[in-house]
Every structure is written in structure tokens, then in C-alpha cells.
């Protein structure tokens, strides 16, 4: 198989036109000593038919569940067919970054719409075109906040572990500090925050809802953070923002998050989409692409990549981030998803997730041994105790093709319920919990 159109004869003629005798001549600048002497040791080439059936058989080794009650940073929502159909148009899929605005108005306009959607969901002033994922968005936001003498990010033990890990990796590489403080009842501890907020603190990062699914009292946190002249970064799940108070309403300086919930498949963790939005005051510190609206010489509306003086290709080592390629097609998908479900639809997704999660929490926690771990207000995830080895619960659920919640290190279970989980499924989980623990 090959994707080369040229025939052997055409290639020979072209080679002759270059003045070279053999293909090897074209590589004469490659020192003999580093030339590979043997072919690459890879599996034999196969036809597309063979490769696809092989890949299908590999996919079949994955286990597909009919119902999913697991979240912890990736959420199973319904994705309307129209979203998949439009986002797979090959003009979008096979284009590069829109460096040439005249032939890229379609892509630039979608990114402009994406930025508008993010600003509307978060209430923030400005959004960039997105970054790799929610965790790297948090790390990039930290970089935006650092200044001379202020080199520390403060966060809580109730943020997603994967986000904390990425924050630490980025901080460690940059010689910056991440301080993790404990929680009270699963929520950020204001007292401890007050102590940690010294004048080396650049910013505080909280998640809304947090890893445990709880809704933080972000108002009090914001006041405290700003009193100490630090910045507040809020990691908000975008679907929840259809209902929850926005980071802007809380006074956050930067809002970030994992936008996978907006129409992106679970896909074993990627590609996902990190969104980043800020107040106007922080606009010029945002990393990555930003699209702006302008006009052409005839006064027609036109969109362009703008404020590029922030970026690596202009600023090089003085840029705050090296991001170049981002997750543009995911941003396009998220935009189309938001337009497809629309204003009412996103509210419905969020409120159904909320109502069903509360129904499930009530049902599960009524079963002996499955009490709710925390009493705080939650969105669509909650933690229950588990009176037995939680793996036993998972296997029993798996037998009915249900993926149970995530088992936490403490042996408790973090459940997630979204609009796609039906009442019947929730009831089924409850009855399995009962069955397993009754014996």
C-alpha cells in the first residue's frame, strides 16, 4: 500500500529532471555512518482491508458498557448526530491552522463563535481558541499569574488528581511551587487558605464542582484571594455552567476547564479540549491562538488570528507558553454542540444530570453502608461509602454491563450521573448494591 500517486515511470522521469542518478543520490548529504543498513523492523505492510479488520479486532478487546456511572474528569453525554456529521467535514478536518485568513474564514469564524460561546458560558470577557486539555489549561493559567516574587500556586486536595499532577509537572519544570492544602467536609478550607496566602502566592486554583462533585463557596474564596492580591483561577466544568453561578459572577480572574463534556467523545482521554477565559485585564497574558474580528479593504467583515505578539513565533523565549497547534477541531465540535443543543438544551442536559444525580444519591445512600461521604451541595457527582471491597460492587455491576463509579484510594466510590442515565438504570444499580451487600 502507498498513498503516492506517482507511477514508477513518472518517478524515474522526475528523478532525471533533478539531475540525480538514483534516489540514493538525493540523500547524499546523510553521512554514510548514520544511514540505516537494514529495513525498519516493523510489521509487514497490509492492505487497508486487512488493517481495518485487525484494528476492529483490537477494538473488540475493549469492554463497552451499556451504562456508565463514572466521571472523574470525563463525562458521558449524548452527542447529537448532527454534531458528528458537521464536525467531520473534510474541509475542517484537513486544514492547517488558519495562517492564511482569506482561505480560512470558515475556520476563523468558528473559532470566533467558540470564543463567544465560552465567554457566554463563563461570563468572562475574553477566551482564547483553546489549549490541549483541562489540566494543561490550569497549568497555563498558573503561568499567566506568575510574576517576580510571586511564584506559588495554592490549591486544595479536592481538585482532580490528574489536574494536580499536571500542575505539579509544569511547576516543577519551571521552578515554581504548588502548595496543596487540606479540605473540610470536602470543601476548600478558608482558614487554611488564609494562612497559606502569603505574598509569594501568585494565585489560587479551585474547581467548581470539585473532584468530589461538591459546589464550593467560591464567593468567600474570591474575596480572601483578592484581599491578599493574588489571583483566582476557577476550573469549571462547562456543562454545569448552564446552571451554576459563573466564574465571572464569583470574581475569578481566569476561568479554565475541560470542555470534553461539550460534545466530545470519551475516546480514552483524548483528544479533549482545555478552555481558557479571562478578564480583559489579563487578556494579553492568555496563551495560544486568539481570533479577532476586523474588516478587509472593502469593508467586509473578516476574521484573523490576532494579538500574536503574545505567541511563541513572535516572542520566542519570552512567550509565556510554547503552544502552537491546539485542539481546534475539538473547539469546533464544542461550538457546534452548543449551537445544536442550544440555550434550552444545555440547561436541560445540566438539570437532568443534576436531578438524576440527586435521585441516585438518595437511593444509594439509603442502602446500609452506602452513606453519602459529604453533606455539601453537589452537582452530578457524589461519593458514597462502601461497606465491602468496592471491586466486588464493580464486578457485580459489570455483569449487567454497567460501569460503576470510580473507586477512590480510600475505598469509597465516586459516582457520576448524567442525562443519559435513565431512572431504570439508576434503580438497577441500587438493586445490585443491595444484592451484593445483603449476602
Amino acid at each position, binding site marked *: 500500500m*502507498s*498513498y503516492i500517486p506517482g507511477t514508477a515511470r513518472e*518517478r524515474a*522521469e*522526475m528523478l532525471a529532471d*533533478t539531475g540525480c542518478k538514483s*534516489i540514493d*543520490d538525493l540523500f547524499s548529504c*546523510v553521512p554514510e*555512518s548514520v544511514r*540505516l543498513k537494514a529495513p525498519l*523492523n*516493523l510489521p509487514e*505492510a497490509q492492505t487497508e482491508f486487512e488493517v481495518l479488520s485487525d*484494528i476492529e479486532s483490537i477494538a473488540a*478487546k*475493549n469492554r463497552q458498557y451499556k451504562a456508565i456511572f463514572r*466521571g472523574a474528569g*470525563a463525562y458521558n453525554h449524548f452527542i447529537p448526530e448532527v454534531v458528528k456529521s458537521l464536525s467531520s467535514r473534510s474541509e*475542517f*478536518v484537513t*486544514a492547517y*491552522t*488558519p495562517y*492564511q*485568513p*482569506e*482561505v480560512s*474564514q*470558515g475556520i476563523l469564524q*468558528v473559532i*470566533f463563535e467558540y470564543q463567544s460561546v465560552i465567554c457566554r458560558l463563563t*461570563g468572562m470577557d475574553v477566551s482564547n481558541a483553546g489549549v490541549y*486539555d*483541562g489540566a494543561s489549561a490550569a497549568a497555563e493559567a498558573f503561568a499567566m499569574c506568575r510574576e517576580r516574587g510571586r511564584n506559588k500556586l495554592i490549591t486544595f486536595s479536592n481538585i*482532580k488528581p490528574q489536574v494536580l499532577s*499536571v500542575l505539579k*509537572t509544569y511547576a516543577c519544570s*519551571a521552578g515554581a511551587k504548588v502548595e496543596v492544602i487540606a479540605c473540610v467536609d470536602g470543601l476548600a478550607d478558608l482558614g487554611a487558605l488564609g494562612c497559606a496566602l502569603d505574598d509569594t502566592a501568585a494565585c489560587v486554583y479551585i474547581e467548581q464542582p470539585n473532584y468530589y462533585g461538591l459546589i464550593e463557596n467560591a464567593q468567600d474564596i474570591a474575596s480572601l484571594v483578592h484581599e491578599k492580591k493574588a489571583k483566582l483561577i476557577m476550573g469549571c466544568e462547562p456543562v454545569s*455552567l448552564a*446552571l451554576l453561578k459563573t466564574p465571572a459572577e464569583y470574581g475569578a480572574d481566569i476561568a479554565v476547564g475541560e470542555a470534553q463534556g461539550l460534545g466530545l467523545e470519551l*475516546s480514552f482521554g*483524548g483528544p479533549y479540549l482545555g478552555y481558557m477565559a479571562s478578564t480583559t485585564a489579563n487578556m494579553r497574558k492568555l496563551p495560544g*491562538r486568539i481570533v479577532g474580528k*476586523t*474588516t*478587509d479593504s472593502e469593508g467586509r467583515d473578516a476574521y*484573523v488570528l490576532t*494579538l500574536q505578539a503574545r505567541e511563541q*513565533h513572535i516572542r*520566542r523565549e519570552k512567550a509565556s507558553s*510554547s503552544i*502552537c497547534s491546539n485542539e*481546534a*477541531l*475539538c473547539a469546533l465540535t464544542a461550538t457546534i454542540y452548543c449551537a*445544536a443543543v442550544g440555550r434550552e438544551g444545555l440547561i436541560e442536559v445540566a438539570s437532568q444530570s*443534576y*436531578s438524576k444525580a440527586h435521585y441516585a444519591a438518595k437511593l444509594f445512600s439509603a442502602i446500609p453502608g452506602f452513606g453519602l461521604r459529604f453533606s455539601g451541595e453537589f452537582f452530578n457527582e457524589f461519593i458514597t461509602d462502601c461497606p465491602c471491597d468496592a471491586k466486588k460492587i464493580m464486578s457485580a455491576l459489570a455483569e449487567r454491563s454497567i460501569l460503576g463509579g470510580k473507586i477512590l484510594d480510600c475505598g469509597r466510590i465516586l459516582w457520576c450521573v448524567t442525562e443519559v442515565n435513565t431512572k431504570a438504570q*439508576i434503580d438497577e444499580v441500587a438493586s445490585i448494591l443491595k444484592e451484593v451487600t445483603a449476602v
Partner: protein
Amino acid sequence: MSELIFEKSHEGRRAVYFPECGVESVSLPEKYARTSPAPLPEVAEVDLVRHYTNLSRKAYGVDNGFYPLGSCTMKYNPKINEAAAALPGFTHMHPQLDEADAQGCLEIMYKLSRSLCEITGMDAITLQPAAGAHGEFTGLSLIGAYLRDNGMSARTKLIVPDSAHGTNPASAAMNGFTIVNIPSTPDGFVDLDALKNAVGDDTAALMLTNPNTVGRFDRNILEISKTVHDAGGLVYYDGANLNAIMGIARPGDMGFDVVHLNMHKTFSTPHGGGGPGSGPVGCKSFLEKYLPSPLVCEDNGKYTFFTPEKSIGKVQSFYGNFLVYLKAYCYIRVLGGTGLKQASENAVLNANYMLEKLRDTYDIPFEGSCMHEFVMSLDKLKHETGISASDIAKGLIDNGIHPPTMYFPLIVHEALMFEPTETESRETLDNAVEVMKKLYETAKTAPDTLHAAPVTTPVGRPDETAAVRNPILKY
């Protein structure tokens, strides 16, 4: 018309309906609720479909035509890759699944990692980075961790040639390194004397793109890596240009310690209008223990995750852009070792063919053949006619060709960088050559028509200065 989706919104319109909730509806306590609904668009499905279909017609991808965007390897993106990445057996996999439930995903990760090690001559690979620059950040973090771990924290200087892509120095700065820029020769090669002067006790590493950003293979490559190693530093390989050398030479054999690859260039995964990409990082065995967590190992057909002993931690929430590198896996399986080599040979052949045909007309700032891409300078033309690299680029647009990369590398003035890739036919190249020659004539005879280009597009050249002066960044 360029109306936004928001401007097509009508209160009460819907495209998607949801089943009845089925449980009692509870409402969020007011103190946690947003004061007003997020004003998202309200449109019918047909509005939505027309809106985005029409926008797609104002986009230009590899599927639309020739896209010789240098340094970006805009090769054809095989459709089978998309089919593989659309299999529910992959798209429905939750990243928080236990290993036992995701054996197929782990198998792909394992096998792809092995193949990439073979292609690059490295010992271990992480698939976690989401793009090339993310790979750079990750690879340099490995180097930083290694230096700290071995009492070499005083090695803080990262040497970067002035021909490097902007992401190189930016990634180095993110890792807290001090950047030492060294000049290149006019061919974009490393200036060996400058390198020898730059290395020392404080050298952390050299970061190098090879073939370089002018499209040439540095014949001193072994001496370069040796010079840095002798000084106690490491060498990092920016693999953006790997499409020139697959099956021909390997970064690992050239003495490099770390390499990043771009699945969205070399391995045919589409670029999505800016992403998602995938930027795996390979390293030699002495750096493996620092790789991001987790890696996959295999035992008797069973795949498991493990955390390297001194892992730098995670660089992405889960396992990287799985569906993207799944496409790369598919591509490597279809081509095999022979096919990959053939791809590189033809990429180099196509570039040289174009180069030879254009050499008499345009200024090529170096002698001899190129690798998979070449750079021309329009400096002289600009002085003579006022026509810049950008003007020629816009002229290409009016002829149905996507422009090459402009103004990169920075060491070539008024640069245009052509990378035709192996998947283009001779007619396509001939046509592009003819258009380029015609544009040269136009530059000499009727420069004003080029200043006005493009005229065949939905909009002409946007006023970028106004966009910066008065930023309008949302509706």
C-alpha cells in the same frame, strides 16, 4: 454572508430534544445558580447544518487542493484512519476504565510505542503530549529532571540555533532554561565554531531540528551531537521534519537523547484546522525512568500500566490524544517499513523536483539538493518590485494553491518555504511551478495586481493592525 450563528438565533427554536427526565426534578439552590441563562444560539437543525456547511466551504484543507505549507507536512490524510478512529470500541472508552477493560487501547499504545521506537532509534516513548510543542516541553522536562537527579542543576543553558522554530526557545523557557542562541550558516547548518564556543559546564542541552528548517540535512550531525555530549550536555531532536528520513536515518543513531514527533505531520493524522495533534516523545534508556506516567508494558499478551520510577508526573489528564495516535498506528500498519521509506523518498523527490524547476526563476539561498522541503528568498524581488513573500503567497491563493509557509525560518529574509510532500502528483507540482513562474512575471510587469490579491476569496486581506488596535474577540 458571514452572519454568526448567534445572529441566526430565534427564541424558542430547537435542534435537539431530550427524553423526559423520568425522575423528580430538583432545582439548584438559588445561591449557587447563575443569575441569567447563558445566551447560547437557538436554531433549528437545518439552520445549523447550512451554517456550518457554508462555513466549511470557506475553509481550505488538503482535501481541497495542494497545500505545500513548509514544516507542516500537509500530506494526504487517508480515510481509513478516520474510520478506525470512529469505531465505538474506541470512542466509547472512558479514560477512567480499569486496564482490564481497555486492553485494546493499551495494545494500540504498546504496539505504536514499539514502532515509533524502531522508527526513531529510541528506547522508550511516551504518547502523552498533545502536539509538537507539548512534546518539546515534555522532552525538556525529562532533561531537566535528569540533570537535577544527577547533581547537574548548574547546567542551565539551552543552546538553540537561530533557525529554530519559535516553539523551541519558548518550550525551553517554560522549563526554566536560559536560552543561548547560536547563529547558523546561511544554509541553516549549525555553525560548528559557534557551537564549540557555546558549550561548557553550564550546558544543559542543544535543541536541534534536522533536517533543519531550511530543509537540509546537517552533514556534521555526528560531530554536533558529540560536541555537546563531550561538554556533558544532552541533545534534543525536534522531529518536525522526520518525513524526510523515515527508514533512511534515525535520530537515535545520530546520537540524540530525546526526540519528539508530530503525528499530525509525518504520520498523516489530519490537522483539524489547528489541532488536535499528537507529539510523542522518545528517549534513550537512561531517561526512561523520568517519562510521564503511565507507560504500558506487556506480559504474555496482557497489557498493564506502570509509572516510571522517577516520572516527571503527567503532562496531560489521561493518555494523550488517543484517537489521533490511533490514526498514526493505522498509517504505520498500512505502509510498513518499506512504505514509510518510500514515503520519505518521494517526499524528498517531490521537493527536489519543484526546487529544480524553480531555481532559475527564484532565489534559492543555498546550493545543491534539499530534503523534503526548500526555502526561497524573495528579498531581491521585493527590492526590485516591491512584491513581498506575502504578496506571492496571496497570488497563489487566487490560483487555487494554498501558500507555503511565509517568513520562516527567520534567518532567510522574505522566506517562502515549500513542502510538497510525497502524496502529490507530478501534474500538481508542474502546475504549482507554472503558477509560481507566472506570479514572478506579474511581480515584474504588473505588481499592483499582486498587491490586490487575493480577489477570488470571500474576503480580501484583512486589516490586521485594526484587529490588534481594537480587539473584537467575541460576539
